[in-house]
């Protein structure tokens, strides 16, 4: 843990009155992983800890990790759910390669996560769950808490369940409800240990259990029990502080990629002054976008939960035809099903935004795990020559801006746009410096209102010379009645045409209009100005690549970094940028899909570095790999 440096010692008295003050150590960065059974509420616990931490002004990055099964058999390895949060007094790019602290609510959580915890790290275990039966369930022969196998770690054995049940003895709730509150007990203990403010959790509990005041009281009491345990137990000799990070002034909230993406779509509708229509079919890990958008009818957002993925994109396209901002959100299997309709949208030249929150494939693959392996499908996965614009989001917050950019391209150029997110940025979170609405791009469009031909007639396929977009003539406009469809259309008139020369012209025009999309140049970051190796990335690898590049530079190793938001069309300066370095390295969570495109396009011998483990790269792994490449240049 290069970044896990201890500070200079005790720093102030934060303890509650009535307890002997414990020594406080300052840290600059901590990574905690909360792990338990799917039913233990670990996502909620992590989320609350994150919120408390955000209030304190630390920079944060989070990574949830959960099974696809809602409730795998209790206490088993497949049922383990975890939530990792990194927080620091400086700006961080990733949720951390490995935790410093593991909170293990049962033997399965310990077994599933121990390998990730470096020796010397802290383990807080709920001893109550270490029964013979639970140990056997996950294949422990003995009890790791007693057999010395955890000797290399700093283990704190806490009876979280019994402590919670004991603390709630006077509460009139069921034993089951009392036991369930053990996650709040764990949160209380961790909040004490890292000196987190707890007001927001108290307020949260009041909101969450508003209908059941007895549960508000019980969960608060469980939280306090955990906190007090930290104060009084000899098991914890010190507590820690992580001072606030230097962050740009303004209002912040912590946001996941999926929520940010959904809000970006709402914002695009507002800035375009158009109704938003989302057609979607539930699919992991994209469903949260449907959930979020369904709350925002006030903004004229309609959500249709369609009968299948094909209908979902059909609804979006039908709405676009009618003059709305038509959007569909899904994951890889859904994009595969939507492919024919996306081709229709290419032929119709109507705006359409297709959100693909990528997950590990093929087929059902690993539904809750991340991957970047849908890029080839996004770029090429349609019948015929059917180019579309492709945009990728690089971080949870960036999902907001990438969504607006996807909508800008769709509306301006009347084209389908595939917006690539993935499970890592979708479920991960980070603090978001909230933008001013007036700083967001103006996305207003003009519908066709009258004839566009010099002869006073209306030509549905007469193009804007700049954008090559055709007029958006929505039904209801008198005088512009026209027919469109999937059959090849004659240039300008849009009438059915089987003319060979016309088809050749239209195919080339559809390609040219995607190439004509105005995208910003790719920016290279190289503080030294002397780097010989460029590390290039796209999408969610931004965090680990950025952290690796920083670590290298801190050690005096020069490296240039560039990250692509636009995958189609590519930035105009990209060829020049690639040619300017001795080596270009491209890490991807696939088997080299972008590398293949860039090699073909620019004839550059790209070093493709690949991993498909369902997990993001670690910055350490990239740092090591990049250093190796740099050494050999």
């Amino acid at each position, binding site marked *: 843990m290069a970044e896990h440096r201890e500070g200079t010692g005790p720093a102030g008295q934060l303890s509650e009155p009535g307890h002997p003050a414990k020594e406080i150590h300052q840290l600059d960065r901590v990574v905690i992983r909360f792990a338990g059974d799917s039913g233990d509420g670990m996502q909620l616990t992590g989320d609350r800890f994150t919120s408390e931490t*955000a*209030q304190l*002004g630390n920079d944060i990055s989070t990574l949830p990790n959960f099974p696809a099964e809602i409730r795998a058999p209790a206490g088993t390895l497949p049922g383990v759910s975890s939530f990792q949060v990194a927080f620091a007094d400086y700006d961080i790019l990733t949720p951390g390669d490995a935790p410093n602290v593991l909170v293990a609510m049962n033997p399965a959580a310990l077994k599933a996560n121990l390998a990730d915890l470096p020796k010397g790290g802290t383990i807080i275990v709920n001893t109550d769950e270490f029964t013979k039966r639970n140990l056997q369930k996950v294949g422990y022969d003995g009890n790791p808490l007693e057999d010395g196998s955890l000797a290399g770690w700093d283990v704190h054995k806490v009876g979280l369940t019994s402590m919670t049940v004991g603390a709630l003895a006077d509460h009139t709730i069921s034993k089951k409800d009392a036991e369930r509150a053990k996650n709040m007990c764990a949160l209380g203990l961790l909040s004490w240990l890292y000196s987190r403010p707890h007001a927001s959790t108290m307020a949260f509990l009041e909101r969450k259990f508003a209908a059941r005041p007895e549960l508000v009281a019980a969960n608060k009491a469980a939280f306090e029990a955990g906190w007090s345990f930290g104060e009084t137990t000899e098991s914890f000799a010190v507590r820690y502080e992580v001072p606030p990070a230097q*962050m740009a*002034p*303004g*209002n*912040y*909230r*912590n946001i996941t990629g999926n929520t940010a993406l959904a*809000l970006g779509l*709402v*914002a695009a509708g*507002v800035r375009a*002054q158009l*109704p938003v*229509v989302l*057609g979607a079919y539930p699919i992991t890990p994209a469903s949260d976008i449907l959930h979020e958008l369904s709350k*925002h*009818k*006030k*903004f004229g957002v*309609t959500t*249709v939960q*369609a*009968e*299948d993925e*094909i*209908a979902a994109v*059909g*609804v*979006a*396209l*039908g*709405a676009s*035809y*009618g*003059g*709305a901002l038509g959007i569909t959100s899904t994951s890889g299997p859904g994009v595969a099903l939507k492919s*024919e*309709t996306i081709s*229709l949208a290419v032929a119709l030249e109507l705006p359409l935004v297709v959100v693909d929150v990528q997950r590990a494939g093929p087929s059902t693959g690993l539904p809750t795990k991340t991957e970047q392996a849908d890029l080839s499908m996004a770029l090429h996965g349609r019948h015929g020559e059917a180019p579309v614009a492709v945009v990728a989001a690089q971080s949870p917050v960036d999902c907001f801006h990438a969504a607006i950019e996807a909508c800008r391209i769709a509306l301006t150029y009347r084209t389908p746009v595939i917006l690539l997110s993935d499970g890592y940025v979708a479920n991960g979170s980070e603090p978001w410096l*909230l933008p*001013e609405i007036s700083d967001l791009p103006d996305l207003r469009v003009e519908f066709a209102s009258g*004839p566009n031909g010099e002869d*006073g007639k209306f030509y549905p396929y007469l193009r804007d010379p700049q954008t090559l977009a055709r007029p958006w003539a929505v*039904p*209801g406009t*008198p*005088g*512009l*009645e*026209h*027919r*469109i*469809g*999937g*059959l090849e259309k004659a240039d300008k008139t849009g*009438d*059915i045409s089987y003319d060979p020369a016309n088809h050749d012209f239209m195919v080339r025009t559809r390609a040219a209009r995607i190439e004509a999309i105005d995208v910003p140049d790719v920016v290279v970051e190289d503080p030294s100005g002397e780097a010989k190796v460029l590390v290039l990335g796209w999408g969610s690898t931004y965090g680990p690549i950025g952290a690796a590049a920083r670590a290298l530079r801190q050690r005096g190793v020069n490296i240039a970094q560039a990250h692509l938001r636009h995958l189609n069309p590519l930035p105009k300066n990209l060829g020049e940028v690639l040619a300017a370095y001795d080596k270009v390295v491209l890490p991807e969570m696939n088997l080299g899909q972008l590398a293949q495109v860039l090699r073909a396009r620019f004839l550059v011998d790209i070093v493709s570095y690949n991993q498909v483990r369902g997990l993001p790269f670690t910055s350490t792994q990239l740092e090591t790999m990049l250093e190796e490449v740099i050494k050999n240049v």
Partner: protein
Amino acid sequence: MSNAVPVQLSAKDFKSDQEVRWCPGCGDYAILAAMQTFLPELGIPRERTVFVSGIGCSSRFPYYLNTYGMHSIHGRAPAIATGLSVSRPDLTVWVVTGDGDALSIGGNHLIHALRRNVNLKILLFNNKIYGLTKGQYSPTSELGKITKSTPGGSSDAPFNPISLALGAEASFVARTIDSDRKHLQSVLRQAAEHQGSAFVEIYQNCNIFNDGAFEVLKDPETRDAYLIRLEHGQPITLGNDGSHVVTHPAGSFGLAVREKADVDPAEVLVHDAHAEDPAYAFALSRLAGPDLRHTPVGVFRSVRRPSYDELVRNQLDAAKAKAGEPEADLAALLNSGDTWTIL
């Protein structure tokens, strides 16, 4: 072209400048002509009328009408039309489809549009054959149908489109025949007036690949014995002199056709298209056998239940009533939840 809405439109106003390219003698011509002469009477401006189709011979329909139109992809017209209808309540949206388009590749979209009661007028041209792909059996072809793809006869039982639509909770279900313009237009009129999904099966002759499929219903020699014309509020009879009637035999789930002379007049079934229980319309839909004897045409069922469009619109309107200036609301939305300020 003037932007003003013509007060009085004629059939000519609804003809597009495109050359119609169905086979000579195709039943689609009759349906197109019936539609073009019928549309003016609705008094709906051309620009507010949209035809959405899928793929197949019937799906070329929108090209020939001078309204807005989309010839989409195979089977998906109901889904695309749903997106249009739900976001544009000011439009009248027709879906034109065929037996392959609606019942095979697009079966899922059809049943869900009907279940939701989307405000669509769905016209299913049923010719019991794949025409555009040159003669394979369709999901409405009779069992044992010999076609290019089933030289030994088809092995799968057909759908009954009316039964299917009723099973999918359709609020308006009707059947008519391409060659009977008066009946066709009367059914179209009722469909157009219906709020919610209106499903109309149109028996349509494919004179190339399945010629005469419905001839017994058209031939003056046979039609009286085969065809039952449903009229709401009227006794259900058939035969040119009403020689036969439809009854509901005690102890049976289904209906029966009996000689009028053998039946107590009180037992003759009076057609009630508004019956709440769809079992009645379903029983009617099962009356005809594979030989088309006792085929009812007309409106089987027409009941009022809220359309999907209305319900969605109500929620939107209620939410919008509480909305302020959109950009201020957006700023408030972004700033909601647990926020903090760095000075």
